[in-house]
């Protein structure tokens, strides 16, 4: 089990890219932190998700 934006998800054993392809996240419009470290887009394909990992997936929204 990993956590994505606070929600438990079964994605261990997948790469970040493989996980994203199971979701509706727009890959061009997000940034990802894995266990508190930013994962550059170029590394989505080679970064493996391990049991207990925490992902934050963020994007821009309206703000002041």
């Amino acid at each position, binding site marked *: 089990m990993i956590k994505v*934006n*606070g929600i438990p998800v079964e994605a261990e054993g997948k790469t970040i890219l493989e996980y994203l392809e199971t*979701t*509706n*996240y*727009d890959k061009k*419009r*997000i*940034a990802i*932190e894995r266990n508190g470290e*930013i994962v*550059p887009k170029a590394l989505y394909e080679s970064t493996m998700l391990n049991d207990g990992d925490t992902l*934050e*997936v*963020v*994007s*821009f*929204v*309206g*703000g*002041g």
Partner: protein
Amino acid sequence: MQENNIRNNPNDNTLNNDPLTIGGHKFSSRFILGSGKYSLHLIEAAVRDAGAEIITLAVRRANTKEQENILDFIPEGVTLLPNTSGARNAQEAVRIARLARELGCGDFVKIEIMRDMKYLLPDNAETIKATEILAKEGFVVMPYMYPDLNVARDLVNAGAASIMPLASPIGSNKGLTTKEFIQILIDEIDLPIIVDAGIGAPSQACEAMEMGAAAIMANTALATAGDLPLMASAFRKAIEAGRQAYLSGLGRVLVRGAAASDPLTGFLRDE
């Protein structure tokens, strides 16, 4: 009679030869637009009618349900200014700023750090810390702050590209309640002073610009207006008017008495 008070052609003055420079980037607009609390579908009209070249954004957890992304609604060529809203200390602000940069839309960041959720006042001490870290990392740092001269000097030393003092509490539309202290920053700090938060009406924006503010940032004033694009246009004109008045130099104020504008001779009577 003053003969020497025609210094510039106003049309040649404010818009073309008077750029706003922030972190080495030049802008002709002095109106920074917020994008919060209104429909994404109004952003294009708001940017157009505001004449805005900078728009603020927030960073939040991404949503897999909504298919619309705000970046698709912002016209090309507009500089994005992500804020660090939600940050409660310098560390959280730095984290949000880095994520914002990873989103791939430039190096600008507006630091916004709040511990107090009732009045939403910025934490000046943490803001100085975050400014120092992010400026060293190459960000164009625009800290939102409570107007305090000592803090503003610390922010300059920390590498800020502008200073963004609040006019009154965020979202209050109350206007320049900190006027005297913003004036001190304008007079003493050699960076653009951009009045942020609490400006609720074009007249207030104009007044801040007449004082010498470099630019105005507004969001709630537009988001809560009856007709958002129309209010964006009104703000634009007020900000341009205020800037021209500042560049002109305001006429003097008499402490007491009056001064006729008409000749004091040649009255139509015999005396």
